[in-house]
């Protein structure tokens, strides 16, 4: 692997966004993911290689460290910020087809529910894994999900709920999405839901944590 790819991976793993960012302290003044990805592209390295071997590989490491309780969320968020900044250089290559995203993931907290911390974590992890994420926010209706699904054919959907009373809303939304778009795959998550509930409401996967959501998505994509 090119040395610069390893450096990019290191910057993303440890949250070094750009040269000016003070975090992590031991990399102060050094080039960050922003500068290194630009340099790599300028030197003719394929954007797909930079993305998969450098950026996504680093985010997978970050996700694993988080799952193993070796880092806290702020460190993961810094990695995600480094990823986002670096991604700005890669995005033009999505349009010309030289780099492929895995797909589009539409996510939202179901209507009647305002909790979004868990949803935001899932968004970040999924985006870091190479997906295009469309975050509809909180208190999202079935109509809004269905409208967005139409805009992104073949997309996958994530629903979050934190209240027992909004599980009802989740069930309704799953039913309406499946009625309007039977092939759309839906992942659910949130404190009151579980695998049994997932099966009961005919969702396609349940994940108890952000990293699990990434795994479930990748499995559904491969299926």
């Amino acid at each position, binding site marked *: 692997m090119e040395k610069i790819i390893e450096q990019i991976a290191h910057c993303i793993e440890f949250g070094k966004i750009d040269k000016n960012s003070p975090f992590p302290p031991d990399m102060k003044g050094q080039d960050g993911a922003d500068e290194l990805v630009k340099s790599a592209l300028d030197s003719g390295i394929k954007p797909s290689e930079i993305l998969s071997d450098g950026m996504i590989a680093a985010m997978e490491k970050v996700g694993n460290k988080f799952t193993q309780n070796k880092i*806290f*969320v702020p460190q993961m*968020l810094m990695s995600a910020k480094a990823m986002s900044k670096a991604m700005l250089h890669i995005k033009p290559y999505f349009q010309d087809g030289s780099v492929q995203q895995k797909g589009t993931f539409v996510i939202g907290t179901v209507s009647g529910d305002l909790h979004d911390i868990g949803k935001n974590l899932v968004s970040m992890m999924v985006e870091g894994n190479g997906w295009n994420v469309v975050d509809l926010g909180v208190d999202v209706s079935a109509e809004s999900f269905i409208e967005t699904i139409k805009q992104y054919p073949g997309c996958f959907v994530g629903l979050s709920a934190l*209240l*027992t*009373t909004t599980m009802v809303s989740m069930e309704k939304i799953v039913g309406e999405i499946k009625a309007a778009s039977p092939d759309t795959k839906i992942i659910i998550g949130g404190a*009151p839901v579980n695998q049994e509930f997932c099966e009961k409401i005919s969702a396609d996967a349940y994940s108890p944590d952000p990293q699990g959501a990434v795994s479930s998505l990748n499995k559904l994509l491969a299926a």
Partner: protein
Amino acid sequence: MKYRDLAIKNANDLIFGNTPHPVTTKRGLVIGGGRVYPELNFTLPSIEVSPDSKEQVIEHYRQITTGALERAKDLYSQGVVLELETVIEMTKYPDIGVGVVKTMNEICEEYYQKHQLPTEIRLTPNDLREFDRPPRQRTGAYLDPMMQLFEEGAKAGGNLLSIESTGGKEISDDALMMCNMTQFIFSQAVLGVRDMHFLWDKIADVAGKTGVLMGGDTACGFGNTAMVLAEKKYIPKIFAAVARVATVVRTLVAVEHGATGPDKDCGYEGPFLKAIAGIPISMEGKTAACAHLSPVGNIAAACCDLWSNESVQNIKLLAGFAPTVYLEQLEYDCRLMNQAVHKGHDACTQLQELMVNSDISYDPQALVLAPESVIEISKEIVKGNNYIEACVLGCLKSVEIIDKAYKQDKLTLNDMELTWIDMLRSELEAIPFNEEKFIDLVVPTLDQNKILLNEYGIT
């Protein structure tokens, strides 16, 4: 800052069941006056709540209330507080919430008249205002139904008014996730305090008109969010412990507006309020494991006046419906504490010591709730010349207490946690106490799409 001194100056006097300013309710419960009562909290199972399902919803609460009070009667309970914490639709359509209060109150009155069981209803409308994104704390359409539920619910029998208000939450959520203490303190000591003044002025009006008591506010959406994130290992426990202390000043504003307590259960900042203002408090610990995990199961009871279970779904367990089961658990905990109160101060101190020592070495969040810590931190808080200074001084003291306990081998912390002691201290020391300067420092760092500063009176 109204409070410049402590109502309880010695840790030895910060004890369960007694407080300098007990509260007597309409049906004769004397809270904080020599007895700990259970406070039962409950929620609906997974059912739809809407104007169409109002009768079904009310029926759930009728069954919950009857089951719990019947069990309380059979256990010779001396009194119970029932908390109705509404779900979104019950506040959005106040008629549903008011209908539930009315039904619960009829049952409470029946048990009072027939069985001399004194009970009160704590009415806690959920704060709807965050439905607007960014929230419109002062001008949004959600404020009116919420205040309507306060007023009509108070008339229907909600004799203790409380809320988990959400001023500053649009900033605090991200601040917690990023472990940005500067922004978190801004969300509490600037946004939270400003919103509390606005909201509790209105709640005080309702209480004045209806003749009910103001229980108080809680920083559930802030301190408890931090605690839950720490339990999931998303953020350091040290950060959650200091964040807990940072919530005290915003909750204290309710007391400044006339809240007499009992402060609400999920406000683990309650012990600080009790020390500073001498009001009775409700607390939740091991009996709240039905709602969320916590590292403060025993220590939470150390100075409680009501003992609560946070929230349990109305589902059937082997022994009966869950709220009835939880009433029994709470009642037995209260019996034990009341036996100690009956035997005298030494017995209370002994029981409290067991509660404290069984939790204190495992988690900094437990450590800051130990009576000695609470008094030390509260002394710093009341030194503050304004809310920001009070907040920062309290937080710095909590960092000092955690650091000292670790160095004396009295607190277990892993390496991932340890690095946060110095980071937090440095960050806290850099916060300016002048509000204008603090606003100028923080506002440019915020996501401007998430907040409407004029909704907090900041121009």
